[in-house]
């Protein structure tokens, strides 16, 4: 099977674009990725498009209606917050399978404001606030509090993650926000669902990101100077766990996916120079230091206390600003974090550059549950 390379990749600056359409936002990133690859839509042999909000509305085809209708196969993907990464992975698989040499992957989302989630509709009466809460800040707070129960993780430690990611985003012009949020500000912000304050919740924004993936043969033909090798692409669903029905498990499926990813790449966490992981809430990021093997179980609090996960630290995490400050357009996030890692591997990440980065990892979790992990390498 051919190795697969990212030849072009880009994202738009995340923001709020209520006057634009989903395909229009997606088309912008698609054109940027094509330009980055030095290719045209005429060169694409297939397209995989990730979008959640209009999953039944042929977003991929509508993007092509804006940038060039060449008749290529288009597949639209929805996989909760792993949607963009799943579209990227489908593109990767189509090249692995030997079907194509040049494929476009696009992730796009237009978000409203406000809380996501909630405990079901269905018949009868609303259950939210009657049988606990199904809002996302609460669900991920409960997952974080499980960690607190096991290891004594504190509100302050969770809050420090948000301080870090907001700081990182001041160095990222494509992030929604470039604002420092000192610890007091984070801890004293409006409490949404303890221990997640408003500044510990990801930002609902509109955005898009896209990548051009190519086979090794095509990469060599077109020039390897800026090509990034996909060393691993893993996708897992949630295995049965005892509290499954009331507590979506973001840990077990991450551990399955990362094990697969490390095996595919034939390397371990110690070889990874930076990680973009799914910090939909500050409580979530804490869990994934351990799930991804960046530290031993029970050491996540120490990782943030000691600064190991900051830019300049042992294993910088979410130097883009993460979902907490760069923003989280659900369908775009998975490809946006691939863009971030590629920027570092290419040495093009500007002020937030992780010096000498050779290998980077991306991770997303879609509740329900899907976990997608990619390991990327500068060849």
């Amino acid at each position, binding site marked *: 099977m051919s190795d697969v390379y990212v030849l072009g990749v880009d994202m738009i600056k995340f923001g709020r674009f209520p006057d634009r359409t989903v395909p229009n936002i997606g088309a912008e990133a698609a054109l940027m990725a094509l330009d980055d690859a030095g290719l045209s839509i005429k060169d694409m042999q297939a397209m995989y498009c990730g979008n959640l909000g209009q999953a039944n509305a042929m977003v991929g085809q509508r993007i092509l209606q804006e940038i060039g209708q060449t008749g290529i196969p288009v597949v639209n993907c929805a996989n909760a917050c792993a949607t963009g990464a799943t579209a990227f992975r489908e593109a990767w698989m189509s090249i692995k399978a030997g079907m194509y040499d040049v494929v476009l992957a696009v992730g796009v989302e237009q978000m409203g404001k406000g809380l996501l989630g909630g405990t079901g509709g269905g018949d009868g*009466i*609303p259950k939210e606030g009657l049988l606990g*809460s199904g*809002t996302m800040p*609460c669900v991920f707070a409960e997952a974080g509090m499980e960690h607190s*129960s096991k290891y004594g993780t504190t509100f302050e430690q969770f809050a420090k993650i948000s301080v870090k990611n907001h700081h990182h985003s001041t160095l990222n012009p494509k992030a929604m926000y470039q604002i420092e949020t000192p610890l007091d500000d984070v801890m004293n912000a409006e409490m949404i669902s303890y221990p997640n304050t408003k500044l510990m919740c990801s930002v609902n924004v509109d955005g898009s990101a896209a990548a051009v993936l190519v086979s090794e043969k095509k990469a060599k033909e077109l020039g390897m100077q800026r090509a990034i090798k996909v060393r691993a692409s893993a996708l897992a669903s949630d295995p049965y766990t*005892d509290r499954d029905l*009331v*507590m979506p498990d973001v840990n077990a499926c991450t551990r399955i996916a990362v094990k697969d990813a490390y095996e595919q790449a034939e390397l371990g966490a110690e070889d990874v120079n930076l990680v973009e992981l799914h910090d939909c809430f500050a409580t979530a990021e804490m869990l994934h230091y351990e799930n991804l093997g960046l530290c031993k179980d029970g050491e996540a609090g120490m990782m943030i206390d000691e600064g190991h996960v900051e830019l300049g630290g042992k294993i910088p995490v979410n130097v883009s600003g993460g979902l907490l400050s760069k923003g989280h357009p659900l369908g775009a996030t998975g490809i946006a974090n691939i863009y971030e890692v590629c920027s570092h591997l290419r040495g093009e990440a500007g002020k937030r550059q992780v010096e000498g980065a050779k290998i980077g990892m991306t991770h997303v979790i879609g509740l329900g549950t899907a976990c997608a992990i990619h390991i990327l390498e500068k060849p």
Partner: protein
Amino acid sequence: MLPAVDYLIVPDKGDPYLEGHKCNVCGAMFLGERTVCSKCFARDKMSKVKLSNNGTLYSYSIVYRSFPGIDVPYISALVDLEDGGTVKGNLINVEPDPENVDFGMKVKVVYGDALGRKDKDGNSYMSYFFEPA
């Protein structure tokens, strides 16, 4: 009164209770009726069991912002029941402050009106809550 969820049983006579569906092969516990066990894949081996009204607090969050019209703050709690099963609900009769909530605290399941919520036909519902044992 009608039950707020299908795993809450309100008999004509006797006390309401929570019902689990347990796999006779591997012991996995589910809420709601099903025929296949998603843990061990056995088919047609599920039995109905009456869940315990005693449990311990596994995890929680205190919800300060919910959807419009929902009273806050409240404690959203995950409770491991004695003899198996984990259920989610509101922990009541505790001041919603982390100081007052301890992991592993003993709680009991209590039953009552579903906070006055009615469906579009005006029917009242019964729900369940947790309170400190």
